[in-house]
């Protein structure tokens, strides 16, 4: 029989330390749904998703019940819609987002991601039509997520797309003003986007992926935090080892769930994403892990170093626990979704500039950050450009999910509720970046992209 202490430890992790599988995401290729007639294309999309994901939620719930491990979300990611919609002759792609949302409702999943375009080197007419449809698509659907990749280490940064995305973010916020700009919480602007990410809002099903695939995202900041409490005062080598061991266990659980879901659904297993994904619940915060390492508040000097240690140790621990690791894999730092980050931002200790530095060493980027509603589109674009530059030069994924909360200013808080939490409005620099953004063109790929 398994060691009694280990059994109780596992139960404590689930019960008191918020251990869960954050998402089981089914990736579905929609490339075979292209059609010259947009209505026919939407019908094909709806039919394929509802057919392939018919049993996803039920299987997820069965696994939850049998293993006693919560699976918080069941999600679907699809081929970037610009590639599918491009075959049709319509100008407005909102109907495609609605087809995705209808399929989501029918299958009972929590989110559908993939209202996306990959434009790091240039935009096709379809890409541009999709991007221009984003604000209405996000306002008129419930839980469809959108992402646009504007840069990569290989291609450089498409600054025309960056400029356009600043305006799209602003417009999305305005169209969803009644919900505090909620539309922007479903929109991610990437550099070096990955094709097998199971996490929202940035999930899409890349073109190099199989027809259908199961990807799993684990979680577990609370478990890491608890483990670190036991090594208070020990040197940072011990801290790294402790994080590694904990990440190993958490990932093994994710791997088990992924294999089981893949077997039951008859869909190939893709990857386990090793991300530490926080929630607004007390005891499930990445910021509190950094503070446990010895920082008075997340955001003070030393935060970047602590996060670098954490991010790297999570990967090292997780990589041996899964047969295939992918996605974003690291520590997420979404401000509104992390109780400790919310507190640090509210106190003023955590600023956007510090978050930007943190994104150099964490797995994604400026995530779920509310800024004043008066922030200009050019400033939003400039924030996106800064993040994309960090990703491009450091050969890593970076992202921006920013909410210029309509009618709100520093000191206000935007409430989203649920996993999305609440975001204190953070100050941005008021000096203009408009001339820089207006130049457009492309920032060339860095010299180290020339590897061949």
């Amino acid at each position: 029989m398994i060691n009694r202490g280990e059994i109780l430890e596992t139960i404590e992790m689930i019960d008191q330390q918020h251990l869960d599988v954050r998402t089981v995401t089914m990736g579905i290729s929609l490339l075979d749904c292209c059609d010259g007639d947009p209505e026919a294309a939407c019908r094909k999309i709806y039919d394929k998703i509802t057919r392939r994901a018919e049993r996803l939620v039920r299987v997820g719930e069965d696994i939850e019940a049998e293993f006693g491990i919560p699976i918080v979300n069941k999600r679907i990611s699809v081929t970037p819609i610009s590639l599918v919609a491009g075959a049709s002759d319509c100008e407005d792609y909102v109907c495609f987002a609605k087809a995705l949302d209808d399929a989501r409702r029918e299958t009972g999943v929590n989110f559908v991601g993939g209202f996306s375009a990959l434009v790091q080197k240039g935009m096709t007419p379809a890409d541009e039509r999709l991007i221009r449809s984003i604000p209405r698509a996000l306002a008129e659907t419930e839980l469809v997520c959108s992402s646009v990749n504007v840069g990569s280490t290989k291609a450089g940064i498409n600054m025309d797309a960056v400029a356009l995305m600043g305006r799209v973010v602003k417009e999305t916020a305005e169209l969803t003003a009644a919900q505090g700009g909620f539309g922007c919480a479903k929109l991610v602007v990437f550099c070096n986007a990955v094709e097998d990410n199971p996490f929202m809002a940035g999930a899409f099903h890349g073109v190099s992926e199989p027809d259908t695939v199961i990807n799993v995202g684990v979680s577990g900041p609370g478990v890491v935090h608890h483990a670190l409490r036991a090594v208070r005062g020990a040197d940072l080598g011990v801290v790294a080892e402790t994080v590694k061991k904990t990440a190993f266990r958490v990932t093994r659980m994710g791997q088990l769930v992924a294999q089981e879901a893949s077997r039951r659904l008859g869909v190939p297993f893709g990857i386990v994403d090793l991300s530490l994904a926080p929630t607004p619940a007390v005891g499930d915060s990445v910021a509190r892990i950094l503070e446990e390492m010895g920082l008075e508040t997340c955001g003070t000097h030393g935060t970047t170093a602590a996060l670098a240690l954490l991010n790297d140790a999570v990967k090292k621990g997780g990589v041996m626990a899964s047969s295939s690791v992918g996605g974003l894999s690291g520590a997420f730092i979404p401000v509104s979704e992390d109780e400790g980050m919310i507190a640090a931002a509210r106190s003023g200790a955590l600023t956007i500039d510090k978050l930007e530095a943190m994104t150099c060493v964490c797995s994604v980027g400026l995530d779920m950050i509310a800024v004043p509603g008066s922030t200009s589109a050019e400033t939003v674009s400039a924030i996106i450009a800064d993040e994309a530059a960090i990703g491009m030069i450091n050969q890593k994924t970076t992202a921006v999910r920013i909410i210029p909360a309509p009618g709100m200013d520093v000191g206000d808080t935007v409430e989203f509720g649920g996993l999305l939490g609440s975001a204190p409005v953070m100050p941005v620099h008021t000096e203009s970046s408009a001339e820089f953004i207006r130049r457009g063109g492309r920032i060339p790929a860095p010299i180290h992209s020339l590897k061949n």
Partner: protein
Amino acid sequence: MKAIVTVIGRDRVGIIALVSQLLAGRGVNVLDISQTVLQDYFTMIMLVDASACTEPFASLAGELAAEGEEHGLQIRIQREDIFNAMHKI
């Protein structure tokens, strides 16, 4: 299929009988039991074989949890694989 039943709560007479009866009534065979009482706090871990269980695993888990709640206990049944995965290489 092997599974682990854990029962946690304040100690009182008849906990083992309650759980064993529930399991026996559904064709679940108990393979091993370990239990301790620490400061009136009862913890029991059972290794069971649920392959001949007369109902779906999920509803068995639901019934155990509900029965536990009625008696002020947390009763859980989880497939053994989850513990093996997390603690064994």
